[in-house]
């Protein structure tokens, strides 16, 4: 290595730097693409979880959607109201009232409540089990193989005693669990209150058939509909009219809950103070594990 090589190397790199920076500088002007500054501002304001809960591919796509195609500013489930307010400020519009979106599992049957389960030796996923006839007699209810648990990035849904159960403290409402459930029993619902009433069953069959397959399933007896106008029976299942829910009808609703012979009108969401007080002395389990009692055989199938 002599001074000739050193100076030639320096000259080469310098020359390349000059040429390339000239070309790139020219290209960045010649190929400049105008981007709305509001898009970048909104990307900054969003939490950047890229969860897809808003219905767009990612946060950047949602920001583009807000600016270009007028998507609602309050669709980000992770950011919540504060995020919606800042996005609305960037767009210069008023924010509509928004509710957190949370999943509700429309099934209440734990393992022991389900009748007619047969041994299943296939893939341990709901997706696979759903394709096989006769895994369990109820063709609407939770299969309990935990597809939703695996889909959740926030550790907020677990199969407890064979039934998918949402941990509303951890849930951010991205909707991943609802989209993977092959039986569509998880719906994403706007929570107007921290605890809301839900129908914990999806079985659309007539009462006699439901009784044959499940200990707790809704038999479509219309007892709730007689007590309160909030309930409408469709396909042997009650639906709840959340729009007209107010303090006045609460008494009727509570009566309807008591009348329900199967206790299928359940409150879901964050626990009430009374529930917390009742369980505050109980030890917390360290790990809540998915419980695959859903097969008769204890050995797990490994293909």
């Amino acid at each position, binding site marked *: 290595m002599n001074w000739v090589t050193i100076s*030639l190397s320096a000259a080469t790199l310098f020359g390349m730097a000059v040429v390339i920076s000239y070309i790139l500088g020219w290209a960045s002007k010649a190929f400049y693409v105008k981007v709305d500054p509001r898009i970048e501002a909104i990307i900054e304001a969003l939490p950047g979880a890229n969860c897809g809960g808003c219905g767009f591919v990612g946060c950047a796509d949602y920001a583009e959607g807000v600016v270009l195609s007028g998507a609602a500013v309050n669709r980000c489930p992770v950011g919540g109201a504060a995020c919606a307010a800042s996005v609305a400020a960037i767009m210069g519009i008023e924010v509509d009232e928004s509710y957190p979106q949370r999943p509700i599992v429309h099934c209440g049957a734990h393992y022991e409540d389900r009748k007619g389960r047969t041994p299943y030796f296939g893939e341990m996923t709901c997706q696979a089990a759903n394709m096989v006839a006769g895994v369990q007699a109820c063709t609407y209810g939770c299969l309990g193989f935990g597809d939703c648990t695996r889909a959740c990035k926030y550790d907020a849904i677990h199969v407890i005693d064979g039934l998918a159960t949402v941990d509303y403290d951890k849930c951010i409402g991205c909707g991943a669990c609802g989209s993977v459930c092959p039986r569509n029993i998880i719906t994403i619902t706007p929570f107007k209150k921290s605890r809301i009433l839900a129908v914990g069953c999806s079985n659309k069959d007539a009462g006699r058939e439901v009784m044959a397959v499940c200990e707790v399933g809704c038999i479509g007896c219309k007892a709730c509909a007689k007590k309160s106008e909030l309930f409408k029976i469709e396909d042997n299942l009650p639906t709840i009219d959340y729009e007209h829910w107010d303090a006045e009808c609460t008494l009727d609703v509570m009566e309807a809950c008591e009348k329900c012979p199967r206790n299928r009108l359940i409150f879901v969401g964050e626990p009430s103070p009374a529930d917390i007080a009742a369980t505050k002395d109980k030890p917390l389990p360290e790990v809540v594990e998915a419980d695959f009692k859903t097969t008769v055989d204890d050995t797990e199938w490994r*293909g």
Partner: protein
Amino acid sequence: MFSYLIDIFLIGVVAALINNFVLYYFVGICPFVGVSRKISTAFGMGCAVIFVISIAALISWTITTFVLMPGAPLTRWVAAHFMTPEAAAGVDLTILSYIVYIFAIASSVQFVEMYVRKFFPPLYKALGVYLPLITTNCAILFACLIIMSKIVGVDNPADAWDLGRGLTLAVGGGIGFTIAIVIMAGIREELDLCDVPKPFQGAAITLIVAGILAMGFMGFTGVDSGLRKAMMPAPAVAAQAQTAPAADGTGANQ
């Protein structure tokens, strides 16, 4: 001329199948593992690699031939005019190869990104984050280094690769990368539905599958010499026919 075409064809086949960058040399593994989750994105990544690797090969061949290699004309001219004639005789800047290639690759990726963003917005959206990712893809640098070794290290100057050979290697290597990553994506799409034992889940099973795939590609070994024999002009065939046993007739139809 004919033998040159055979050469070009064989360089392409060898780079794409036999000495596949990913499955033979195991370079470019990070996009191979990272982007092979879906066939559509894997194919997009493959196309982006073909595109960038060709540009990188073009630039690196030019720079190596005119600036870096011992006795390169441009460097020689600079040395002769601004230094002493003795200095011009001994110019050799091959020590700069890595930094210059990375420089060239990074800036060409930058340029391509701006160009695609302006004129092909859908393609830009489809490629997304993969285009800048290619900057650090070692397969590209590897192609540049192979091309350099074919220009700089050769004994006979007439054997040094020209631009056509270099570009063929790059395009063939890019196609090989695309083949490998699309096959891998197809396997991984199936793998998602399988019950993989816990210790093997994720990257582990992916690398095991890559290894098995590499063994599969070992089956191509020797195809190039067979092809060369098959395509060589008549004298080679005649010479082969003499050596091959005449009775079974398998050697004659090559």
